[in-house]
């Protein structure tokens, strides 16, 4: 089964445990400025929204890469950056419509979410279930269940 990161912003409290986990998993340091997932705080609306790569099927970052450094991981379906091939041209950062591929000046390469090889650290660290790793074909299942619970609420006829 292919799985996807699923984000429910309503459950996000803004604790940034996901950003800490991401930087620790991928860089071995606690450093949110190196995180591939970011939580945005819309102060005046009182909303906090985690955002990261959605692993597009038709991944423009991958298509745009002139050296074929972004490839599909056979196990997870993630589009992963091969640092040994990446030349840091940043074309992928322009091609991505969502801004989720970013340049890292320190390495001279780009980085993006690679689903941590199938065990995303952000989802594991999230204390509220705002970030989960679920069946890619059924990311809407929880939402369907919620709405299903709201239907057919008329009193039942009793015998």
């Amino acid at each position, binding site marked *: 089964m292919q799985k996807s990161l699923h984000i429910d912003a309503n459950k996000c*409290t803004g604790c940034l445990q996901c950003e800490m986990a991401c930087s*620790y998993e991928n860089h071995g340091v606690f450093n949110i400025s190196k995180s591939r997932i970011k939580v945005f705080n819309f102060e005046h609306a009182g909303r906090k929204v985690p955002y990261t790569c959605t692993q597009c099927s038709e991944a423009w970052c991958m298509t745009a890469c002139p050296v074929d450094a972004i490839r599909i991981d056979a196990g997870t379906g993630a589009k992963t950056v091969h640092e040994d091939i990446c030349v840091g041209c940043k074309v992928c950062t322009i091609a991505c419509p969502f801004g989720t591929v970013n340049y890292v000046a320190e390495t001279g390469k780009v980085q993006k979410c690679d689903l941590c090889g199938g065990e995303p650290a952000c989802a594991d660290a999230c204390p509220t279930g705002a970030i989960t790793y679920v069946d890619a074909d059924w990311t809407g299942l929880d939402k369907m269940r919620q709405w299903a619970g709201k239907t057919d609420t008329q009193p039942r006829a009793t015998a």
Partner: protein
Amino acid sequence: MAWNRKILRVDLTKGTCKAEPLNMEWAQEYLGQRGLATKYFVEEVDPKVDPLSPENKLIMTTGPLTGTVASTGGRYSVVTKGALTGAIACSNSGGYFGSELKFSGWDMIIFEGKSPKPVYLSIEDDKAELKDAAHLWGKTVFQTEEIIKSSHQDTQIRVSSIGRSGENGVLFACVVNDLHRAAGRSGVGTVMGSKNLKAVAVRGKNGSGGALKDAKGFMAATKAAKKVLADNAVTGQGLPKYGTQVLMNVINEMGALPTRNHRDVQFEDARKISGEAMHEKRPTDGKTHLVTNAACFGCTIACGRISKIDESHFSVVNKPQYWGASGGLEYEAAWALGAANGVGDLEALQYVNVLCNEDGFDPITFGATVAAAMELYDLGILTKEQIGMEAPFGSAQALVELAQMTAQGIGFGKELGMGSARLCAKYGRPELSMGVKKQEFPAYDSRGIQGMGLGYATSNRGACHLRAYTVASEVLGIPVKTDPLVTEGKADLVKAFQDATSVFDSAGVCAFTTFAWSLADLQPQLDTACEGGWSMEKLALLGERIWNMERLFNNAAGFTAKDDDLPSRLKTEPAKTGPAKGLVNGIDKMRPEYYKARGWTPEGVPTKETLDRLGL
């Protein structure tokens, strides 16, 4: 990383910023944050110093767990000699500023001297410099943060600043970070203002984590501790849902909700300003007051409240800048602005709370000072002409106008800016100030929760709930249930809470973890993060050492056993209603027991044996 092992010394008089190695010997004896910064402070500052003179210093400090994945590991503290109290002050705040300071590579910043003109400190990793703040002076906290982010072209900068109240000398000004988190009490923002220091702006891309003592062990220890928080009814359910406001109805039922300047112990409108009320739909617009809960950095509890004020409420009509979501209400502020004044208008309380954040003044002391002013008005000592309005108990209109005047430093707001002790003394009724060491009580009446009276009286920073939160034991049964109506056993209870809290405040985590965590839950996190072998014994001794160090500073500053006392009202006017009806606080019985438990003389001075035992 536990410690960055580097501190920043900022000489505001000369305008210089210098790096220094952290004193690692002291780090082994005082851990970090409250303990370690206070050690620096007492070593460097004369206890007799005038808090608002250039000779006073101000330290912004992190703990070893700040900026790590430990739950609630985002705390920082401001340590100085308090403008309101003249005692040692240490005010703790969450948000994201503390972790960012840690990420930038510093453990603490020591500010000394006084800048000849308004400045702010800009830190970008190793680079630290003072910048001109002429354009920020006179601006609110909200404006200051926006201007700094915009001029640095960096939305991810974290800012701690003072508002207009800190510039105007309001004696209970806060240092506010991330818009609505504050190092709130004792007037630490006033000290910052006296130094012409408007703000500190930090961006840390260095990160931390390179030198945890045992990284793998630390990840396991922090994960286990997070589970303890999640599984606990208070930290896992009550606080996320209702915030600290979960207490309003509970404390009122206990007859321990100070009302109308402590004349009463129960408030008839408590329900209207409670956490439950924040979840109810308003008749005016069909929306709930509460928008969402929120976490500070690293926090897996998320007790924070984010609310929206009813746009049709009189306080914000035609003021769209107050219609957005903002921080509040937390229990202490809801009580101080509400029950303490007899005001049962939730929307008015939140508006005033936002003003407190916007211009950086402590809602506890402000609310309690309004309560004292309302009593003086009720007694005919203060007149309508003097205040500039009618100010009876229960008037939301008066509360709102007085908050605006205090924020702007105009009219009677200037008198309120002194705090209740100086206000009541000025008008000949010093006994009507409800506080200890010139700092006002928080939201628990010590006639109904006896241990809190001893905690208030002996708190090193003046009346405070965060030095010994015996409410946990006396009300919630954490770690064991004790009878709130008796004095027996409270001396030992208060000492135990004071010592343990000193450790938590020095680690870089939030005091609220202690609803679920004991020292035994904190210990493995510290021991895997920090060099030096942090055993339970070492931590227990650490807490007691910090408490006595603070006490020695206060004694040298001129405080005596006489200052470890409660206002006469709590000792002579019995609670009128509720479970504590007929009771006064038994402070005079508890105090000698407490001194004995502490190993202090009957005059409240640590004995030589005690100091030797603690290595002081």
